[in-house]
């Protein structure tokens, strides 16, 4: 096996069908879709098709789809639009476990005069929705709640939250970057105003995203420029990537069943296999409400970076929420918000699968990981104590 890639929440492989679809637009079909000649018309027709394909996957209308440069831009645009189109409202509600794309923007706004409520989660990563509803006031400009968490895969009850928020006349945004393509989404039956997605999480290239804007939602552009995207996002379109994203959405629709059956089974088998053969390990998150492709496991008394580097020796790719890998000195804000004890937060590993993973790969990981954990534990001054405590129950 060349590589066992279990880090699909970080990014995904571009699907071969997607690559094939986009390549002509990097080669012969290079016209600017805004131009008047028929050479350009071919390109703009293809963009329209991409827009329809994205809309179809989401149960949206084509005019409600705005292409952006990434998931982060979509998040920023939604929150910016809500805040700037309602300047009198100075309150924002979000959660403590958002991706930095939302979290850091909200923190930024909190230093600039907005009041921000960061709604907590429980030990399994479930949102305290009662607290969320109680925090809503006539001053609330927007509520932004992610559909699925990138680290744990925990899925929030977006349909309910959207209904409650909208019933109070408040704008609702969901960062669905991790959800799109993994769980069915039907915006027609949801009261969502803004939804963000990112191409590179569903087998399209990096650097292309979408912001869904419900018809009638007040909007104010983040990137001001030309007439592209009906003035909602200026800038000549990233044609090839948008076409790729359209194809990726079409594929995601046809793979949805596979994702929720075969991939889910692979994930469950990986999880059960590791928990059974590695003592003092536990799942972080809510197994009842979780993406089909993600598992986050905490291994006590070992440190994530060391695990990842030893796994890398076996060409296994995954992520960790440990301090050393989170780019800061503290373990991931998501695990801390859940109150995961330090003993296992530092040793947490996220495995995120895709339709390209196989049974053989899962077997390989179940075989290779236990000795790695054992080896690191044999170096650790804490392990004996922990093991004794664990054995005592």
């Amino acid at each position: 096996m060349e590589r066992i890639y279990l880090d699909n929440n970080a990014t995904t492989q571009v699907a071969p069908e997607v690559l094939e679809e986009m390549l002509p637009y990097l080669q012969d079909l290079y016209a600017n879709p805004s131009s008047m000649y028929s050479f350009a018309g071919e390109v703009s027709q293809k963009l329209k098709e991409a827009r329809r394909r994205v809309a179809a996957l989401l149960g949206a209308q084509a005019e409600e789809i705005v292409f952006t440069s990434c998931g982060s831009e979509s998040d920023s645009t939604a929150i910016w639009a809500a805040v700037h189109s309602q300047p009198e409202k100075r309150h924002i509600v979000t959660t403590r476990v958002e991706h930095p794309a939302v979290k850091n923007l909200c923190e930024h706004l909190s230093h600039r005069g907005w009041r921000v409520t960061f709604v907590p989660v429980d030990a399994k990563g479930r949102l305290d929705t009662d607290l969320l509803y109680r925090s809503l006031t006539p001053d609330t400009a927007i509520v932004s709640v992610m559909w699925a968490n990138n680290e744990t895969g925990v899925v929030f009850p977006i349909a309910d939250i959207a209904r409650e928020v909208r019933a109070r006349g408040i704008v609702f945004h969901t960062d669905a970057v991790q959800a799109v393509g993994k769980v069915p989404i039907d915006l027609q039956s949801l009261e969502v105003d803004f939804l963000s997605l990112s191409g590179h999480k569903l087998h399209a290239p990096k650097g292309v995203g979408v912001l869904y804007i419900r018809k009638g939602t007040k909007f104010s552009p983040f990137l001001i420029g030309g007439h592209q995207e009906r003035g909602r996002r200026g800038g000549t379109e990233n044609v090839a990537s948008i076409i790729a994203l359209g194809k990726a959405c079409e594929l995601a629709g046809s793979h949805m069943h596979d994702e929720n059956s075969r991939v889910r089974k692979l994930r469950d088998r990986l999880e059960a296999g590791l928990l059974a053969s590695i003592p003092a390990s536990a799942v972080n998150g809510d197994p009842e409400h979780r993406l089909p492709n993600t598992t986050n496991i905490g291994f006590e008394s070992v440190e994530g970076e060391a695990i990842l580097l030893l796994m890398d020796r076996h060409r296994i790719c995954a992520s960790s929420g440990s301090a050393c890998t989170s780019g800061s000195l503290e373990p991931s804000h998501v695990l801390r918000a859940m109150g995961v004890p330090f003993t296992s937060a530092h040793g947490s590993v996220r495995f995120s699968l895709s339709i390209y993973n196989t049974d053989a790969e899962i077997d390989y990981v179940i075989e290779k990981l236990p000795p790695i954990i054992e080896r690191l534990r044999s170096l650790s001054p804490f392990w004996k104590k922990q093991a004794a405590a664990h054995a005592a129950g």
Partner: protein
Amino acid sequence: MWEYTEKVKEHFLNPRNVGVIDDADGVGEVGSLACGDALTLYLKIDENERIQDAKFQTFGCASAIASSSALTEMIKGRTLEEAAKVTNDDIAQFLGGLPKEKMHCSVMGREALEKAIADYRGEAEKKVEGNIVCECFGVTDLQIERAVKENHLRTIEEVTDYTKAGGGCESCHDRIQEIIDHVLGMVHEPPKKARKLTNIQKIKLIEETLDREVKPSLKQDGGDIELVDVDGNTVLVKLRGTCATCSISQVTLKDYVEKKLRELVVPELVVEEV
């Protein structure tokens, strides 16, 4: 992806001297699970105060494990007096360098060694020295002061890289800045004068100082500076961007660039534009 030297990787993959010495003469424990790294160092010391054996157990990332392994290799067979002189920088050097975000791993090694020696000498377990500045990682003012002095740290970020202080809630940043300012004020003159640099060291230091201290602020105003040559104590530079055409470029050179270089490299430097 952290960029580790081959030596770090090698010591991480094949750590030397892992384990416990049951009848150790000195034991040093530092770090904690909460902090994400911890090291217990065991020393066996003979009657001539020579370290016969050293073993360790470490919880932490690759560089924490490699630093511990390196430390034991460096001190085995040495007298306590010699071993006590090992600095965190020596540990980092032994490994061919550590990423700057990981320097705290080498500091942890040095601290464990000090504790183990103190333990051997029967010096009463020193209480936390100084006052806690960083609550998140339990770092004291004295620890920060020492790291700043020994490693010539100048920014809060560097202090965080070496001690972890300030890497959590960040509420202690003002206090860390005060400590840096205090140390800089205190050690300004003597060590600079005392420092004897080889030509290569001098040029490197000039380059580093330009990169770190000068370029960022010039760039804010749309300018840039390039080091052309160093001739004795004359530093030849080229100004670029807005600096090059700006009428106050001479002022910039003398008042800002030269001052910085004199302060941070050697006081005799003269900066000239070519």
